[in-house]
């Protein structure tokens, strides 16, 4: 394409609009003012689809995101998966980050922690399901070393949280989840109506989630 055909053929600007040290047609250098590499600029670049910005964010904050996930999970592979989820989320929905609400570092590391906590919860549910299935069908393949380590970690966290519950609620949780009893069996074992057992279980689970969130989010 020739320079000639590159012209858009718009007219001169109004007199006086060309200001400062810039003059069209001049051969000298001009200066430009920058707005710096703030989080707001990074967010705008990400929204524009700038993959260089994504790499810049990873290089600056990937370590913190990984560290945040690892501190909750204690498992390298799971932490790497969280890092990937966090960056896909940032890249797919950059508009969800509001630079006015906090730094990008805080946004990403908190997202990593929340996702890690979700993973722990999911793992807890899996462990509980697995314990119930062991009771029903004792002969199952032995879990791998990684699974065992993860399960031990999460089980430790959840058992500590259970100890914080009031006695009545702790009792029904232990019977339902660690002993694998049904709600009716729990009610019979404790000597309370089945409706009361269900109510205590609901309350206990709600408190447990709050306690687990706080414990995991405040972990170093």
């Amino acid at each position, binding site marked *: 394409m020739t320079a000639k055909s590159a012209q858009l053929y718009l007219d001169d600007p109004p007199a006086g609009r060309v200001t400062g040290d810039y003059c069209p047609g001049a051969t000298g250098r001009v*200066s430009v003012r920058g707005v710096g590499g703030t989080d707001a600029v990074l967010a705008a670049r990400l929204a524009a689809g700038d993959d260089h910005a994504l790499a810049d964010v990873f290089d600056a904050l990937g370590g913190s995101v990984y560290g945040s996930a690892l501190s909750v999970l204690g498992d390298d592979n799971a932490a790497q998966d969280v890092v990937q989820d966090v960056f896909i989320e940032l*890249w797919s929905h950059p508009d969800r980050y509001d630079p006015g609400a906090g730094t990008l570092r805080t946004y990403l590391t908190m997202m990593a922690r929340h996702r890690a906590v979700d993973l722990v919860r999911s793992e807890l549910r899996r462990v509980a399901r697995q314990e119930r299935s062991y009771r029903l069908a004792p002969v199952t393949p032995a879990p791998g070393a990684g699974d065992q380590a993860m399960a031990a970690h999460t089980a430790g966290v959840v058992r500590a949280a259970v100890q914080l519950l009031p006695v009545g609620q702790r009792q029904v949780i232990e019977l339902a989840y660690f002993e694998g009893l049904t709600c009716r069996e729990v009610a019979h074992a404790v000597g309370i109506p089945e409706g009361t057992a269900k109510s205590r279980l609901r309350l206990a689970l709600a408190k447990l989630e709050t306690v687990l969130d706080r414990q995991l989010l405040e972990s170093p």
Partner: protein
Amino acid sequence: MTTASRDPSELPAGLRERVLAASLRARQAGRPVPDAPEIPAEEAFSRAADAFYTTLRGLDGDWTRPALRGLDVQGLVGHLIGVENDVHRCLSGDPDVADAGHVESTQAAAISHAGLPPARTRAEWRQATDRTLDLVRSADPAAKVAMHGMRLPVRALLLVRAFELWIHENDIRQAVGWAPSVPDASTLRMMADLAARLLPGAAAQAGVHEPADIHLVLTGPGGGTWDVAVGDRQPDPAAVTIVTDTVGFCRLAGNRVTPAELDLYVTGDAELAADVLAAATKLALD
């Protein structure tokens, strides 16, 4: 291990590449969020014309305000009537408009409207743009046409025209003290795309010979990213990233702002970036 501020060099091997690749599979690079729906060039021109007409209809006794090149608002609209008439001749294959001067060819039309009732000038301009739309609807968008020194497809000509209408609409708005207008995201993206793709030619015209790969990032509605090579073809071109907002870049290409007036974020050779941005103003006709 202190996990809260882990050195990236300590990250597991391959994690960076895996994460970046997975992210780019989820969303292609260069696609803005939110994305601007693609529209035909004819639609972009039609929208720019509607916006221009809305501005004209809002003018009260302001048609004699100085606007551009010694023309008042009415003279500027007359100039655009002249441009539209040249477009009609161009689309009809008239070779005389191929190398006609943009200003010279339309000056008579601009002057002829002085003193006429504004409503008549406005109606003539509307009729002229409607005629353009009628002609392009029966034209092949990819067909090459020639006008005012440009050789370009009909589609690109319509974008050039949309660009000019927006620029002049804002000349008028500034003349009467109104706030600037901004095109819709789809039209803006097409204008930005046109200007970005013309940057190498503009840089050559401005005498920018230093080879550089320019990673242009335009932010805000209608934005996106463009990778353009400027300067002479040589090994190891400089890598320069230029980030600015889309509207500002389009105003730069229309020669309505200077590089120094833009909010910019530049990595690489800042002086070379400034030269390329200054060259972008060459896209407008002096």
